């Protein structure tokens, strides 16, 4: 039986995710502003946006049905549920069990399914276009995500424990880095590519483009407004946070004092957001036909990691 204090600390990853997720978007935008020589919006801008959107009314298209209205709700609910199984720093996840990494991937799939269905419900050609690209790219990103996680889990706990995100996370210490550093490096890169694709960042998708034709994620949610759009924005931020913590947990080894571990993990996630901003400032979006190559590359890296792991 775990003590109450342990249980309480298990809720910390969830609390961090809920609190800090919108901050990442602000950090990325601020980084891009600095690179562009602008002041840029405040770092807390996403929080202001969320409050503003929650306070507004809504406009619905006459074409849409209940599927459109269910879209943002199910998307956010599934992303929130996914946050339950992701550990952070020295803390275990709120829930952990064997195979929760599969559940994590499929919960993101549930969120995507309803976002896409809602986009198709508007009957808009633009949103159809975004939906079409989204399902294609994510179908290629999914094997990379799962294979990468399995490779790490196998390296971390395959010899001593079970396959769950928390168990894997707690075994990713410096000793493992000396042992299987290359595996972790490969998976880290693969997961970072997945993050860029899933969270619709450059070089896969440009969240700030002015042209609907070139968007993926943003164009799917064109017709949502008010609280619905707040749900979507928050869900997207949450997804960015969750995938970032996964990348950081793979790349940054656990260290011994609890407070230092926590500090390093937080710094790692924020540094990752700054890194995403740097990438967005320094390169252009890939042509859409190039994106599959990036994602297949990520999957191949994950496969390589898995093969390397079984050789060690």
């Amino acid at each position: 039986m775990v003590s109450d204090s342990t249980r309480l600390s298990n809720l910390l990853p969830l609390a961090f995710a809920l609190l800090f997720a919108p901050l990442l978007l602000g950090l990325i935008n601020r980084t891009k502003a600095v690179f562009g020589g602008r002041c840029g919006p405040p770092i807390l801008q996403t929080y202001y946006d969320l409050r503003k959107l929650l306070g507004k009314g809504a406009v619905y298209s006459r074409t849409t049905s209940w599927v459109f209205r269910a879209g943002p709700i199910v998307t956010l609910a599934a992303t929130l549920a996914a946050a339950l199984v992701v550990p952070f720093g020295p803390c275990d996840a709120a829930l952990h069990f064997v195979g929760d990494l599969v559940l994590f991937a499929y919960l993101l799939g549930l969120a995507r399914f309803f976002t896409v269905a809602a986009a198709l419900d508007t009957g808009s050609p633009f949103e159809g276009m975004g939906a079409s690209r989204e399902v294609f790219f994510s179908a290629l990103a999914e094997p990379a995500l799962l294979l990468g996680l399995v490779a790490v889990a196998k390296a971390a706990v395959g010899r001593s424990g079970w396959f769950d995100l928390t168990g894997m996370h707690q075994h990713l210490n410096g000793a493992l880095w000396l042992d299987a550093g290359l595996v972790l490096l490969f998976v880290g890169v693969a997961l970072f590519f997945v993050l860029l694709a899933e969270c619709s960042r450059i070089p896969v998708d440009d969240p700030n483009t002015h042209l609907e034709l070139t968007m993926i994620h943003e164009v799917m949610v064109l017709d949502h407004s008010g609280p619905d759009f707040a749900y979507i924005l928050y869900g997207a931020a949450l997804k960015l946070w969750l995938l970032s913590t996964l990348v950081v947990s793979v790349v940054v080894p656990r260290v011994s004092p609890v407070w230092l571990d926590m500090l390093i993990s937080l710094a790692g996630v924020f540094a990752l957001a700054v890194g995403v901003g740097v990438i967005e400032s320094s390169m252009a979006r890939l042509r859409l036909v190039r994106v599959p190559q990036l994602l297949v590359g990520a999957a191949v890296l994950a496969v390589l990691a898995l093969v390397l792991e079984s050789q060690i």
Partner: protein
Amino acid sequence: MPVVGVLVSGKSLPDSSWAWNVPFGSFTVGLDPLSAWFAAPILGLAILAAVYGAGYLSHYADHKSLGPPWLFFNLLVAAMVLVVVARNGMLFLVAWEGMALASYFLVTFEDEQSRVREAGRIYLIASHLGTACLLLFFALCASYAGSLDFASLAGAKMAGQLSRTLAAVLFLLALLGFGTKAGFMPLHVWLPEAHPAAPSHVSALMSGVMIKTGIYGMLRALTFLGTPPAWWAWTLIAIGVTSGILGVLFAAAQQDLKRLLAYSSVENVGVIALGLGIGMLGVSLEIPSVAAFGFAGGLLHVLNHAIFKGLLFFGAGAALQGAGTGRMDLLGGLVKRMPAAAATFTVAAAAVCALPPFNGFLSEFLIFSSAFQRPLLATSGGSLVALAAIGSLALIGGLAAACFTKALGIVFLGEPRTKEAAAAHPPGWLMLIPMLVLAAGCLLASLAIPPLLAGLAPVLAGVQRQPVAVIAECLAPASDSLSGVLTVGGIVIVLTIVLAAVRQRLLRSRDVRMSVTWDCGYAAPAVRMQYTSTSYVQPLTDFFSLILRARKHIREPRGLFPTVASARTHHQDMFLTGLFSRSYRGFSWALARLHWLQHGRLNLYVLYIALTLVGLLAWEFGLGELFDDCAAWLAARQTMFF
């Protein structure tokens, strides 16, 4: 009732036998947990399909006789049940053939259309090629066991009368024969032709349960063949991966809703085969936990697929009948005309994409878990299995999401693309009630997972030939994960309700307006500007063009004032056009060489018969003895020399 009883208690009913005057045959039937596991979905879905069919066929009542379809429907159900309870090879084959013929007559229900007749012909040929393999399978069985009773077949294996070569030949024959029915790639070619041609309640029955009799046959055959060597398992895993990935790719490329669903059945049979393959690997490597998880995942997927694929075909039938066509590009916006049918279709689409909290996720989760077992990963090929299972399941999941958001989005959502779709009539209560029952089943089957696993343990015990207690012990770790999955699934549902309530409250006193869809300032959006079933998957089909081979017929606009322009895309099944059509052309060429034997002159035909008879007589009376004499003489000479 007895079926449920066997599943709950885990004990087999004793075989009952009646006299049956057929060589090698005896009318022996029995019900063990394996039979019961397959009989339960057959009977359950048959009841629902009958209710649905009563509503569905009533539209044909004024211009077609409804007697034959109901006769063959009942025959089909009876034959399927007989297939799973038969305990004698001859009886099994008769039931198997009855199943094929009854479903053939159901497939050709609308035989005034040449497309349907063609589909029926392909189906008839394919299923008889499969049956031919099974005939050979049972003939070989009878030759070593001396009887076709399943009990003596299993007994002969125990007595060690089965050589390894013979077992391998038998395995390959079973794979071909049962694989044709189950729809393993590349033997699946009849499936996308026959399932869309049949009336929708029959399609549901065929896709939901009839192709599973192929899986049942595989499992039953394995109980005769002893411990499987590892390469059998590898073969099945390879088939599973191929069928799964290619099946869903072909499904995504289809433009006809029922064809899409038929290809998706190929995909799901692939997932089942993957599970069973991992299970067999576990048996041959003697790792019971891997075997238990693999078989459990595969068998659970048999049940789950029956539920959601039945529902999907019911939904497709509602769309087909309401709007008069199954071509997705002529549909759209049906959610407004038939909200309940659209809602159930949404549930089934999420379930077939293996999304939590619906039932499809749990069976795929078990297959994932089977690949995660540490003893398996410790073996040399273990990482390869993990790679195959996890990589392909993830890819299948992603592609299935593309495929079924397309089915849902193009058919039920958006604006109607034609007048017929805009005026579609909703399904009646007779059709709706079975759909609602199955939609509830998608959720309940995932909630009922602990009793289902308990029911599976005796089934697995029979397949793995191990005591129930061992199996239950192997599956015990799963209960922890599954309760975790169910908890999270429950949390998703609760959060959905809470978030909906929050939005409701936020918007209560605010301005909520209805408007047009945002069209980027363009003043005259038209229905035809919507994404179509082809354009939606175009990035995907282009990427996999090596497999999908899109044929594009494009007439580009020319000149300053272009008047005519069109673009049409269709995808051919490379196995049908490439593999089978070519080999059949070869066959018919070779057979045409023998045309000179057949000239239609009756007197010469009589001569053939007479010559054959004379030849046989000569063999019987003279030549046979002559050979014996020669042999004796040779032997005598040899003894003389030495």
